[in-house]
């Protein structure tokens, strides 16, 4: 996958292409001229200090926020501004949230089948069969009929991953998927994400798990104050960052 590293453009269309994107919240500019291409099968870690705009970028990519300038293409197709088409296209990019956001009134399996049945028109029985497979894949056999309240944080987050995968997305966005978890269950979620990456899923992962970024990601993108300041291969970025801002950031988070 290293042929997709920055500076060596591959011939294929990127799955996610962010071009010259600005995002304003009133007077405040949260994203400044962001350019980012993510190719098929590539796993990109997005890191940066709190408030640097990582979540905002994820939310813009699947249009939970509208962008102020620029364009975002998914598989070469620009996302429409609003309306029914947007709703359907949005599910091409799966999103996993820090706070899981499972639907608390639905059992695990129904959380997973809701999208396929109501958005894609898949029959209930087929969707249920696929949901069972997905839940097994994320290690939740036996928990299919539990309500979210009866699941641990790690289990809930794995249901959330299965729910996003059920839409057969072209790419997955993870916004700090383990930040709300107790340390002992972080790994069960990271393991699922690692398997997903190995299976070839295109992923953008906002994370503070530097070990995960090093082991699994093809590229690290570092943001500061709404800008992409530096990007590169994980090993190189963590051992020899080029920019002063990246050095400062790493000196705060990495153990010496």
């Amino acid at each position, binding site marked *: 996958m290293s042929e997709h590293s920055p500076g060596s453009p591959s011939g294929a269309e990127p799955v996610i292409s962010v071009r010259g994107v600005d995002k304003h919240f009133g007077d405040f500019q949260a994203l400044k001229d962001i350019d980012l291409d993510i190719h098929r099968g590539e796993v990109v870690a997005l890191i940066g200090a709190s408030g640097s705009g990582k979540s905002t970028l994820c939310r813009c990519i699947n249009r*939970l926020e509208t962008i102020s300038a620029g364009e975002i293409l998914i598989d070469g197709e620009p996302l429409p501004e*609003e309306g029914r088409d947007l709703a359907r296209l949005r599910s091409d990019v799966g999103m996993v949230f820090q706070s899981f956001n499972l639907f608390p009134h639905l059992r695990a399996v129904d959380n997973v089948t809701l*999208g396929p049945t109501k958005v894609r028109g898949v029959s209930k029985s087929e969707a249920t069969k696929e949901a069972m497979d997905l839940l097994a894949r994320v290690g939740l056999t036996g928990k299919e009929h539990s309500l979210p309240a009866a699941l641990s944080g790690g289990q809930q987050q794995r249901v959330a991953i299965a729910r996003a995968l059920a839409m057969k997305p072209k790419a997955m966005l993870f916004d700090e998927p383990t930040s709300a978890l107790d340390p002992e269950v972080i790994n069960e979620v990271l393991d699922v994400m690692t398997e997903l990456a190995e299976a070839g899923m295109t992923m953008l992962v906002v994370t503070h798990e530097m070990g995960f970024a090093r082991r699994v990601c093809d590229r690290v993108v570092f943001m500061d104050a709404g800008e992409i300041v530096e990007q590169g291969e994980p090993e190189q970025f963590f051992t020899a960052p080029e920019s002063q801002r990246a050095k400062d950031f790493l000196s705060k988070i990495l153990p010496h």
Partner: protein
Amino acid sequence: MQIILDNIPLLLQGIGTTIALTVLGYAFALVLGTALAVCRVSPIPPLRWAATVYVEIFRNIPLLSLLILLAFGLPDAGVLLPYFWCGVAGLSLSGAAFVCENIRSGINTVPIGHAEAARSIGLGFFGVLRYVVLPQAFRTMVQPLVNVFIATVIGSSLCAAISVVEITYVTQQLNIASAQAVLLFLVAGALYLALSLGVAYLGRRVERAVAPGDARPLRTADRLQGAAQA
């Protein structure tokens, strides 16, 4: 007492009319109020504004004024509606404003992240409301909606002012004939109490039905009672 026994059929008619006014008024209020609530949370600004204006107007007009306006103002505007239907209309228009506000605040109890997760799997505005937001909001809405129903039962008595032959009107007529105000209004009060309690009981059954045991959150009141016993 004789006055009541002699007028059982008239009283029964009054009870029937009160129930009809309440049930019809509340049913239309539910439909209209739900539509208004959908407008109030919709992404289309003019719809939001229209619903807000509606709520502010109809929540703040006394029901009695509204009923009199409908009964005596509509004919001036060339609309002839039987008084019974003026009563139903008044109860519906007013009730809808309260239903709308209850549904809206119920919707606001649902964490925004759930709606975003629903959007991210491709559901549109109505899908998000129908499958994710409203089923959660409904549990918190049952009690407030029962309160609107009780307000409708009690508010229906104001229809006496526009000559709808419901419980209060019948009671007034019998009082004019017999001058036994205390007895008569005690009986009328007991009838309204019975109707309201019946509805409150049904409401609790509904609430229990929509919140299965393992999904029902412990309430603050439960904790307070626990603290008091400790």
